[in-house]
């Protein structure tokens, strides 16, 4: 990825550069070595000079279509090929494809007798022939100083070397000359006097029983360059100068959101989870569920059909998968399908080695999400500043590739919870804090979002429950004494339940009372009705009796009148029948 990166530095300089293709070196040189000019690479024995030079040619041939000539003064072509085969450099194949030409120049002092004047035209011819036969654009002269041991005449040799570099410049090839470091000088034979454009110095030192290789651009005429000593590694892929990427903030920012693997946590993060390509820090004290959160995050990625890479620095893969099964998370299918990859190791190696390993794995596996569990362990390896700078580079490298990263960080129980040991929180986009909530003699897990850049997020503390069917986030209770979790929360809930039940009972009782009252009243009504009915019947009876009696009285009176032959009396009108009868009379 470093190859396609261009730092702005290189753009503003007119000096044409020849990219080395070596990870990291092009960044600190602002695009590569001076094109068409020689560069001196010096350093002690075993510092990696030959490898750097050889990789320059191999990368040039494979990545930039620039064939190269390697003129070896110390090792034969076979030896070279064997030495770098483990780095994946197939020199014989490159030679067959005419992308590489190796010429082993060997001058045996004991076989040589000097008689009269001579020059090194033979060397020129060999080099010229090599360059022309494959159209080389790059040339390496490895350990050219061995000529000093082989040839007796220093004056001739120096004059010829000067002529050689001038000749190479005329040829327009980019040259690396390697030379052994002298005591107090850059090179043993002051070869730096021939190469004035660019000098790179390699160093290999041991401090605290940890060996570190370092590289420094001593000089780079006409170009801005990094002046620090940069650590470098020789790993399975070759040379690697750190920083892998320059610390540029040029990574794209995605608006895509991806799930955290826990629905409730998604909800807390504006309902949609993390931003893709963001960096998430999960910090917390021991046993707060950091790894579980991380595993769910990886699982969610695999569910989406993406690839996840899990760097475990404290537990083995088996241990993590077993433990996750206990909370209802089976990672095995993803491992089988190749969507999930674990890399478990103890961080005993140097920081740079780690970074390099991780970088390589990321490059080959091309994951969508990465878990680093925990980042805290890096601090145990190196100094805090070194760890921070390493993580910064790692975070940058990951962001550049749009990889969403979740890092866990162990905070010590007695320290401030928000103190991350490497002070890396500023590198993180989202920070979830897991903390113990101690109350009433028990300890529960609480989670809250300390920050989440660029999205609305919940400010609530949630209790984390690790159940046998997964992680659950539940609301905490805000009791009178503060946040309630665990059994206190359950007790509160029970209490509320009891109260509710009591209220329910009360309602029931009142309803029943009312019902009873209604029934009683209705019974009374029925009695009254019955009474009324009785009374009404009584009244009717007496009315009928009275009417009968009246009739009889009328009849009696009429009988009496008839018998007395009395005349019409007006008073009889009240009894029409009687009147009528009387009218007929």
């Amino acid at each position: 990825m470093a190859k396609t990166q261009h730092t702005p530095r290189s753009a503003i300089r007119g000096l044409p550069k020849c990219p080395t293709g070596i990870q990291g070196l092009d960044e600190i040189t602002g695009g590569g070595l001076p094109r068409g000019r020689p560069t001196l690479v010096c350093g002690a024995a075993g510092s990696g000079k030959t490898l750097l030079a050889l990789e320059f040619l191999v990368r040039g041939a494979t990545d930039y279509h620039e064939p190269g000539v390697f003129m070896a003064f110390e090792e034969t072509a076979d030896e070279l090929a064997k030495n770098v085969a483990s780095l994946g450099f197939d020199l014989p194949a490159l030679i067959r494809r005419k992308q590489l030409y190796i010429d082993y120049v060997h001058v045996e002092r004991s076989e040589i007798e000097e008689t009269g004047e001579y020059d090194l035209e033979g060397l020129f011819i060999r080099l010229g022939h090599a360059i022309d036969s494959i159209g080389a654009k790059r040339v390496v002269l490895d350990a050219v100083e061995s000529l000093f041991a082989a040839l007796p005449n220093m004056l001739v040799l120096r004059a010829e070397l000067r002529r050689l570099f001038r000749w190479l410049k005329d040829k327009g090839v980019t040259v690396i000359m390697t030379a052994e470091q002298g005591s107090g000088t850059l090179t043993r034979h002051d070869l730096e006097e021939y190469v004035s454009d660019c000098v790179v110095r390699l160093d290999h030192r041991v401090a605290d029983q940890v060996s570190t290789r370092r590289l420094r651009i001593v000089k780079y005429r006409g170009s801005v360059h990094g002046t620090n000593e940069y650590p470098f590694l020789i790993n399975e892929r070759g040379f690697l100068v750190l920083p892998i990427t320059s610390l540029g903030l040029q990574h794209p920012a995605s608006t895509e959101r991806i799930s955290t693997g826990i629905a409730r946590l998604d909800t807390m993060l504006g309902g949609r989870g993390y931003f893709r390509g963001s960096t998430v820090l999960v910090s917390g004290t021991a046993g707060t569920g950091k790894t579980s959160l991380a595993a769910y995050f990886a699982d969610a990625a695999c569910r989406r059909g993406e690839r996840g890479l899990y760097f475990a620095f404290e537990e083995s893969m088996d241990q993590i998968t077993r433990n996750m099964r206990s909370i209802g998370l089976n990672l095995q299918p993803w491992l089988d399908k190749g969507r999930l990859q674990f890399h478990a190791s103890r961080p005993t190696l140097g920081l740079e080695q780690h970074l390099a390993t991780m970088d390589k794995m990321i490059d080959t596996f091309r994951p969508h999400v990465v878990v680093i569990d925990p980042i805290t362990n890096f601090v145990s390896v190196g100094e805090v500043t070194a760890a921070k700078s390493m993580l910064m580079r790692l975070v940058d490298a990951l962001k550049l590739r749009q990889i969403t990263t979740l890092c866990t960080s162990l905070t010590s129980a007695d320290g401030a919870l928000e103190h991350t040991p490497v002070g890396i929180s500023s590198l993180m986009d989202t920070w979830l804090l897991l903390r113990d909530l101690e109350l009433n003699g028990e300890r529960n897990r609480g989670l809250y979002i300390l920050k989440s850049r660029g999205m609305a997020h919940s400010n609530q503390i949630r209790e984390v429950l690790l159940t046998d069917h997964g992680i659950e986030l539940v609301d905490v209770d805000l009791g009178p004494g503060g946040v309630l979790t665990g059994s206190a929360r359950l007790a509160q809930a029970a209490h509320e339940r009891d109260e509710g039940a009591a209220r329910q009972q009360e309602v029931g009782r009142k309803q029943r009372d009312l019902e009873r009252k209604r029934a009683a009243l209705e019974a009374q009504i029925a009695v009254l009705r019955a009474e009324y009915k009785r009374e009404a019947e009584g009244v009717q009876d007496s009315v009928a009796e009275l009417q009968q009696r009246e009739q009889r009285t009328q009849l009696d009176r009429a009988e009496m009148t008839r018998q007395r032959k009395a005349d019409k009396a007006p008073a009889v009108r009240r009894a029409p029948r009687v009147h009528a009868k009387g009218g007929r009379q």
Partner: protein
Amino acid sequence: MSMPRRRVSTSAPRSGRRSARSAERWDLRLYVAGQTPRSLAAFANLKQLCESHLAGKYHIEVIDLVKNPQLARGDQIVAIPTLVRRLPPPLSKIIGDLSNTERVLVGLQLRARQ
């Protein structure tokens, strides 16, 4: 004076005494780069020296690397001119224009080192 293109041989025809005298057969190779004065001088010096010390049993092959640059690898040629004693063994190389006859003879092991 000009230099022969490729081979100068003053040895007698190889058939006949070859088996008996093969140990004394001198096979020399002179590497030059173009017809420079130094190359011409080297060839002249060599020729003269061979005639006086190895008459009849030497064979000089002149290789012009300007014309055949690929041949420089085989004998590990760096300096020009270089004279290679291929036979009799051991292989030895003498660099320079061969103007110092004493040292050429030492280099060819025709004279003990002083």
